């Protein structure tokens, strides 16, 4: 088959909702888009362990410590599912790490914001994982089989993350005035960056149209963002906290909340490395990678030696 016919057959499969699997023919652009998206998703899970790991030793109770530890372990697991899914497309784990460490690959900008108070752990679980879930539920139906399967597993595990975060916020919001203020301050800092997690608006998003045609994604950035805002407002009201957006208003006609303009200058500043924690996040990842090198080598040498010995006997 020539490439035009192959391309037609490929798109026909996508249109018929038949999943694409690793050994199937696929256009280069589809492969490249998936490698970029899945590896960056994996990096986000791994880098995302850093802001939360920051509070494990200082969690206010054993219950909170166990919950947070389990959540951070899950993030490691999610990173691993995703790296494996990306590897089915022909990239290697080392290659992906290298791209993260050299800044060629991005990760979600939300993790470049610092976690300065315990309430931030609540806000991250509730809002950041909540926003991620909106996106990931959609991705369980992605056209690439290994990605969709990884997403199903991830979504099953994520809902505990959001609930533990909201519970932290509930306790603080109903606590002393100082605790409530701590929760409010955290909401103020994480609300807008959470909305930015969905990416640039549809008009500005350079990959969106093609990704939708390939059914890698099925909802636009703006649609997902709106769904997140709509879902969050009642949760904020229940906490008795104030939304840091004076323009938020229910729009009867649209059947959605209207919300204020997002500061895209801040978004691009953080994407391009100007966030509070960009440097320290990459530094921490590189350090972990470098310090683990002798372990990786020693384990491999040990395995090879044992295999040789077994072959001789």
């Amino acid at each position, binding site marked *: 088959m020539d490439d035009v016919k192959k391309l037609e057959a490929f798109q026909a499969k996508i249109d018929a909702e038949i999943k694409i699997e690793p050994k199937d023919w696929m256009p280069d652009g589809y492969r490249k888009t998936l490698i970029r998206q899945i590896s960056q998703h994996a990096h986000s899970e791994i880098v995302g362990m850093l802001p939360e790991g920051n509070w494990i030793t200082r969690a206010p109770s054993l219950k909170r410590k166990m919950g947070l530890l389990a959540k951070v372990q899950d993030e490691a697991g999610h990173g691993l*599912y995703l790296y*494996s899914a990306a590897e089915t497309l022909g990239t*290697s784990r080392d290659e992906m*790490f*290298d791209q993260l460490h050299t800044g060629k690959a991005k990760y979600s900008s939300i993790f470049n914001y610092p976690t300065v108070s315990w309430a931030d752990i609540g806000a991250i679980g509730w809002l950041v994982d909540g926003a991620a879930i909106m996106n990931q539920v959609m991705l369980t139906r992605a056209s690439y089989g290994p990605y969709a399967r990884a997403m199903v597993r991830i979504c099953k595990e994520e809902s505990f993350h959001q609930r533990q975060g909201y519970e932290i916020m509930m306790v603080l919001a109903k606590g002393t005035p100082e605790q409530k203020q701590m929760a409010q301050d955290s909401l103020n800092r994480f609300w807008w960056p959470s909305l930015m997690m969905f990416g640039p608006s549809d008009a500005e998003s350079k990959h969106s149209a093609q990704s939708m045609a390939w059914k890698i994604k099925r909802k636009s950035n703006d649609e997902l963002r709106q769904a997140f805002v709509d879902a969050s407002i009642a949760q904020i009201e229940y906490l008795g906290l104030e939304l840091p957006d004076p323009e938020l208003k229910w729009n009867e006609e649209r059947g959605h909340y209207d919300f204020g303009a997002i500061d895209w200058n801040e978004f691009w500043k953080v994407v391009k490395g100007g966030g509070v924690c960009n440097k320290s996040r990459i530094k921490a990842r590189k350090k972990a990678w470098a310090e683990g*090198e002798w372990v990786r080598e020693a384990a491999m040498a040990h395995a090879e030696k044992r295999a040789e010995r077994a072959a001789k006997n």
Partner: protein
Amino acid sequence: MSTKKEWPLWEVFIRSKAGLYHKHAGSLHAADAEMAIENARDVYTRRNEGLSIWVVPSAQVTASDPAEGDMFESAKSKVYRHPTFYDIPDEIGHM
């Protein structure tokens, strides 16, 4: 980029409960089989998803080629291999 050798890739199969087949769960890197089993437990069974784990070096898997479209053609035309191909009157009951 690191030129060091990566740990090999393993395919992980999990039996979720007694009586069921082991089912492919995903893959992971490990230096040897023992480590692959341990990593598979931590990566794929954090919520009691399994009673038993198999790990197989990915390089040892031989797979059919989806580009060979006629591989499964022969079975498609053999409708007489299915019970519904044969007409049995309703009076007979379940057969």
